[in-house]
């Protein structure tokens, strides 16, 4: 106890002295610092303890937050050209708000289990990006290094897509191919929200980047945001993963509102067995089709197909396992931290972010509704019964959306397992989103 008090008193004396001397010396100290930067390693000038403590005080986070006119610069992975002197809000309250948002994301990821694999690293990256003076999101900071390594060039989202491809089983889609159309209808979420975003005042290109949130695919959203609206990357990624995490909350009410109890109780037949060669050829077929119809989507679909082909080939299991495990894990850590660098107050706390959040929610709802309605129509015209609930899985958000469908279906009629039937539209939704993304890219090329 006594030791503690002893040291505390010393420290507090130092700090107090420095605070007093601060008012008079600040300008001078500032001036000296600048001079020192001009010529590296100039002869060291002796400082009194009080001057040292004062200099130290200048480098504390407390001072950086309290003194809003200290000329601190923002950070950007692209370097000085995209940095500016921080405003009072960005330097103080903005940071505190962002740290609050980060804590909210921590809470959602840990206590609620909402997509923790990406929300948690993104949020932690956001925390690091809002640290004063450390410039961790700058070109020489850890987050900036990561960003330039794999996000600015879209490498990490593609590697994630490759890993997801290696994890995906297209069997259910191949067994009942026409359910792919449900994965198409759900892309109405994208284009509907594009109209909405334009109505809110975003220009066409920004609106397109935002609307991909409706595709419910993290890597696709990041890929497109990076191409069409890199400044909004953080908000778009956070919105995309947040809403994907909220699938069990957002989707069921919409599903129930648009279907009758009888429809929700429809039982679907047993799926046929799929030949190994069908699974093997499928990624190649999808890729060839993308090549012919829209090459703009081939980075995404190519990476996805490669992962899936590697798995289905059965001859390079050690590579396929690596894609599904150590590689995708490493990239997920980096992608999260790198995207988090865009949660710096100066980038995230702009009016656009609010718009992005609203549009993202609408997009999600619209996509779900379109999928369900399409499934209702198909059920009318199809010989085999189709439970309209599976249309909701068309938004992708693999495999969460399919699980939600199965859960709602089982609630209506215990023992009715829709999971495999929902996986078809679910994986088709991934392809559908990539195609929609390719169309938007081709427009703005």
């Amino acid at each position, binding site marked *: 106890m006594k030791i503690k008090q002893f040291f505390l008193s010393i420290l507090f004396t130092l700090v107090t002295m420095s605070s007093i001397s601060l008012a008079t010396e600040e300008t001078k100290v500032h001036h000296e610092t600048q001079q020192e930067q001009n010529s590296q390693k100039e002869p060291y000038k002796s400082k009194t303890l009080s001057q040292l403590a004062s200099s130290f005080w200048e480098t504390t986070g407390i001072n950086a937050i309290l003194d809003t006119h200290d000329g601190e610069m923002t950070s950007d992975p692209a370097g000085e050209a995209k940095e500016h002197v921080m405003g009072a809000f960005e330097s103080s309250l903005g940071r505190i708000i962002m740290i609050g948002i980060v804590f909210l994301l921590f809470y959602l990821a840990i206590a609620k289990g909402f997509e923790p694999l990406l929300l948690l690293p993104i949020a932690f990256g956001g925390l690091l990006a809002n640290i004063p003076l450390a410039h961790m999101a700058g070109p020489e900071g850890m987050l900036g290094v990561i960003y330039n390594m794999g996000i600015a060039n879209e490498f990490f989202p593609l590697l994630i897509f490759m890993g997801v491809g290696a994890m995906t089983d297209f069997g259910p*889609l*191949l067994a009942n*191919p*026409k359910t*792919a*159309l449900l*994965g*198409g209808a759900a*892309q*109405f979420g*994208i*284009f*509907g929200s*594009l*109209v909405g*975003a*334009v*109505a809110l005042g975003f*220009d*066409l290109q920004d*609106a*397109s980047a935002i609307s991909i949130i409706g595709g419910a695919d993290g890597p696709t959203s990041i890929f497109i945001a990076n191409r069409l609206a890199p400044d909004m990357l953080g908000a778009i990624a956070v919105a995309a993963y947040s809403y994907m995490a909220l699938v069990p909350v957002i989707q069921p009410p919409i599903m129930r509102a648009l279907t009758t109890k009888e429809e929700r109780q429809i039982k679907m037949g047993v799926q046929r*067995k799929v*030949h*190994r*060669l*069908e699974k093997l*050829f*499928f990624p190649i*077929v*999808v890729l060839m*089709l*993308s090549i012919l*119809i*829209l090459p703009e989507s081939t980075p995404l679909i190519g990476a996805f197909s490669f992962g899936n082909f590697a798995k289905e080939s*059965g*001859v*390079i*299991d*050690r590579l396929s*396992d690596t894609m599904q495990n150590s590689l995708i894990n490493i990239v997920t850590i980096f992608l999260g931290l790198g995207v988090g660098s865009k949660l710096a107050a100066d980038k995230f706390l702009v009016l656009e972010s609010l718009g992005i959040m609203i549009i993202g929610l609408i997009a999600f709802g619209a996509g779900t509704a379109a999928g369900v309605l399409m499934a209702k129509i198909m059920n009318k015209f199809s010989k085999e019964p189709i439970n309209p609930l599976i249309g909701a899985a068309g938004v992708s958000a693999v495999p969460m959306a399919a699980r939600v469908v199965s859960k709602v279906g089982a609630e209506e009629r215990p023992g009715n397992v829709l999971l495999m039937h929902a996986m078809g539209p679910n994986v*088709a939704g991934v*392809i*559908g989103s990539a*195609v*929609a993304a390719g*169309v*938007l890219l081709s*427009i703005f090329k």
Partner: protein
Amino acid sequence: MTEVNYIVEALKFMVLGMGVVFLFLIVLVQLIKLQASLIQKYFPEKTPITPTMPKIGDDIEEEQRRVAAIIAAISEYSKNK
């Protein structure tokens, strides 16, 4: 130089976009069906193609699976005793 109505433009994007998405998926569905029937015809289920090469890295997993199977069998056996 009339002003552009961006909402109308966005609606046009929607028509193009949904059109291409459906075109893509419809063609894909047809190709899947075609492929399924071709495979059914030329490679009926009884002769699945198997890789001729031993796979490095698989041995371990194979081993683990075998181990798990043995254990399952043994524990089953113990229970029934």
